[in-house]
């Protein structure tokens, strides 16, 4: 019996190839979105952890007045690895006529802990300087530029060889002075008086959780110093500083992830609803030939599982291919050279979203079928006249009749239409949020410290593009499903005298009208979302700038363009079927 039920499930999928392909495509898009969102989120939220790991970060970073004290800290019990003591000098850096304080760290090949991770340009060599990336970007200094370094006792004209990041250095300009690396030889030329050098020692501990007690022990072991001469920084405080820096990024990426997941959920819900209405008829037919509701439930559960698993695997592959490219901008905000590998656990998460929704759709149909007679179940999936007389009257009064005809069809499938409108509205709102973020960043003076890294905007627009693609794909799939369900009706309309172009204009026009309504909702929704995001990110909303009106007006216009492009082809394809064949269509 089980084999027969499995055979029946697969025969069902084979007999409805287009529906099966669409189901897999939409569910795969949803699964891909989930994988993508998880990957992008993980690179956006946890860059410090990976930077720390790649840089072999210091569990404790000590700043002390002398080399001897630095060496002594490296020899304390509990230390498993230490870098060579690094000299540090506070200097002035002149670039393009502008002076800026800079902390120069002497770096050499023996640096094994808290290693600077290059992000651009070449490695450090005598006579040159490598700037911490946020410092270089804030000052607009590019690789190859020349800077003058001076300490009052000496100076050096040095070419900028490249940029690098370390997990211990919070982002400039929030944390001043900026950091740069030179060789010890160059450092000696900038500050020939070695008594003015300070030293740092980076150590890794056997028990990283004991970093705080270790720092206290190290401070006690050192000779008494003037306040401020000794500073011990644990890995926890480094992380807190970095997370404080990335708070704005985290809030925005998290919010975008949630919105992507929301759209993914809407997409799968639309699909499940469409399948459910299709399944009613099949359930009725199976009941008619003697299957019990339990057996029918099993058939659809097998079908949902097969489709869901296929979609999850496909979506995971899609997400795994796209994630490194899309997550790169996010990773760039803190990490040096990210190597983003798709996490296999994400396929489980994707399954957890896609499969239950598909199962729920199928089981709801089966549950309903137990209340129906076989004949009622066969009829249950068909559409009827929309219930709301007011909505019908408005549609009839306000739209040309081909569009009114299409809108009536949309009203007849109210749940699907609402979900589609929600997906369009969320996408539009996210674009409004991005435009407003862009406007806010543009309105700030270049020298003002910002909570948002430059790359954030690139990441946000990348996520916008992903969301737009998914919504457009959903739109195509929904229209394909709708026109497929209505092929027989289109045959009737053509038999009555409706031309193919009138049918196309009805489908396209009605979806465009729906999208226009959704995009009008999207604008205030997006503005509200942006203000909430801005407030959560730490700033008051007083200096938040909303995107200009012409930019907001482009949302409905852009929506219309996308909707017309996405719906025209499926609608046109539906009218290509010969009238007699359409009338026979089941």
């Amino acid at each position, binding site marked *: 019996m089980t084999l027969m039920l499995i055979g029946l499930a697969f025969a069902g999928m084979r007999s409805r190839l287009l529906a099966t392909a669409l189901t897999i495509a939409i569910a795969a898009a949803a699964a891909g979105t989930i994988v993508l969102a998880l990957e992008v989120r993980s690179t956006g939220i946890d860059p410090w952890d990976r930077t720390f790991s790649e840089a072999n970060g210091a569990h404790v970073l000590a700043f002390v007045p002398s080399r001897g004290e630095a060496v002594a800290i490296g020899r304390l019990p509990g230390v498993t690895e230490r870098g060579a003591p690094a000299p540090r000098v506070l200097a002035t850096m002149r670039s393009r006529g502008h002076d800026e304080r800079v902390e120069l760290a002497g770096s050499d090949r023996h640096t094994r802990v808290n290693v600077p991770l290059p992000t651009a340009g070449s490695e450090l060599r005598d006579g040159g300087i490598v700037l911490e990336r946020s410092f270089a970007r804030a000052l607009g200094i590019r690789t190859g530029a020349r800077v003058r370094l001076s300490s009052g006792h000496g100076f050096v004209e040095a070419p900028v060889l490249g940029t690098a990041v370390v997990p211990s250095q919070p982002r400039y300009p929030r944390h001043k002075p900026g950091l740069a690396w030179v060789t010890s030889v160059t450092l000696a030329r900038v500050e020939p008086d070695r008594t003015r050098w300070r030293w740092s020692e980076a150590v890794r501990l056997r028990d990283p959780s004991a970093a705080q007690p270790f720092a206290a022990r190290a401070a006690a072991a050192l000779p008494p110093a003037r306040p401020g001469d000794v500073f011990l920084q644990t890995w926890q405080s480094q992380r807190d500083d970095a997370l404080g820096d990335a708070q704005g990024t985290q809030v925005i990426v998290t919010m975008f992830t949630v919105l992507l997941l929301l759209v993914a959920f809407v997409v799968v819900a639309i699909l499940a609803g469409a399948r459910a209405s299709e399944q009613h008829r099949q359930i009725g037919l199976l009941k008619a030939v003697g299957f019990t509701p339990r057996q029918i439930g099993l058939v659809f559960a097998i079908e949902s599982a097969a489709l869901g698993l296929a979609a999850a695997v496909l979506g995971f592959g899609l997400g795994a291919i796209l994630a490194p490219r899309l997550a790169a901008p996010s990773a760039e905000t803190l990490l040096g050279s990210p190597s983003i590998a798709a996490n296999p656990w994400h396929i489980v998460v994707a399954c957890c979203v896609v499969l239950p929704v598909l199962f729920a759709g199928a089981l709801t149909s089966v549950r309903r079928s137990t209340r129906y007679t076989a004949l009622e179940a066969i009829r249950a999936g068909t559409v*009827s006249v929309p219930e709301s007389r007011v909505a019908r009257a408005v549609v009839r009064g306000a739209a040309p009749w081909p569009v009114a005809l299409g809108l009536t069809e949309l009203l007849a499938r109210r749940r699907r239409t609402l979900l589609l409108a929600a997906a369009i509205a969320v996408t539009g709102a996210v674009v409004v949020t991005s435009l407003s973020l862009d406007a806010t960043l543009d309105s700030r003076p270049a020298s003002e410290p910002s909570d948002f890294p430059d790359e954030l905007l690139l990441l946000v627009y990348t996520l916008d593009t992903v969301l737009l693609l998914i919504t457009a794909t959903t739109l195509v799939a929904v229209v394909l499903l709708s026109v497929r369900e209505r092929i027989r*009706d289109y045959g009737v309309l053509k*038999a*009555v*005298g409706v031309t193919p172009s009138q049918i196309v204009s009805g489908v396209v026009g009605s979806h465009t009208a729906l999208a226009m309504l959704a995009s009008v909702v999207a604008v205030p929704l997006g503005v509200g979302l942006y203000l909430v995001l801005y407030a959560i990110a730490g700033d008051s909303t007083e200096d938040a700038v909303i995107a200009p009106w012409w930019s907001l007006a482009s949302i409905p216009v852009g929506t219309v363009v996308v909707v017309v492009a996405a719906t025209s082809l499926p609608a046109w394809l539906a009218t290509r079927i010969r009238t*007699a064949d359409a009338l026979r269509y089941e």
Partner: protein
Amino acid sequence: MAPILEARQLAKTYETGGAKVLGLRGVDLTVERGEFVAIMGPSGCGKSTLLNLLAGLDRPTAGEVWLDGVRIDGMSETALARLRRRKIGFVFQFFNLVPTLTAAENVELPLLLVGRRRRSARRDARELLDALGIAERHGAAPAQLSGGQQQRVALARALANRPDIVLADEPTGNLDSTAAREVLRLFRDARDRGQTLLLVTHDPSVASTADRVITLRDGLVADETELGAVRQVPPLLELQSPP
């Protein structure tokens, strides 16, 4: 005067699973204005195929279809749709009402197609439904109507634009005897108003109401019988309106 509808050596071949199936094998047919013609024959003889080709719903493999002096078998889908609006009314066995429109809206549809204003279309649709005895059900969805009521709405839709010819494919095939009698009465009324009717049926009692009966067999015209003269006295079948 030229016949309203003419088929010349009409043939249609289907491909099913790689095998060719002959639907029609060269049918010649002429229907004069105001005539009521019934097409009969066993299942699979090509009745519905012939009707679809005559209405321009399908394309013949060979042969010609002429409607009111115009050859239509090579017309585009758009041109055919425009032609059907004014010249052809079609009634299906399974009614084929648009499920998302009410009964009245289904009848209004052809009127709107020819450019009538909504208000005027609505008024005419109500009048038609009233004439067919289902005015009180004008706001009902097709799914809420009985088979007989749906077929009357379908007939109202087919007659709305007063087309030159009404083609009907087994219009009583899905109805009980009472509803079938009522629908046939409506067809006779239409014929009495001078409209041309071409009706496919496998029911001899339905065919007996026609002026002429054409019998198809294996995709060819096997027989043709004039009933008009015979029916003068006594009638072959006395149809009664429902009480």
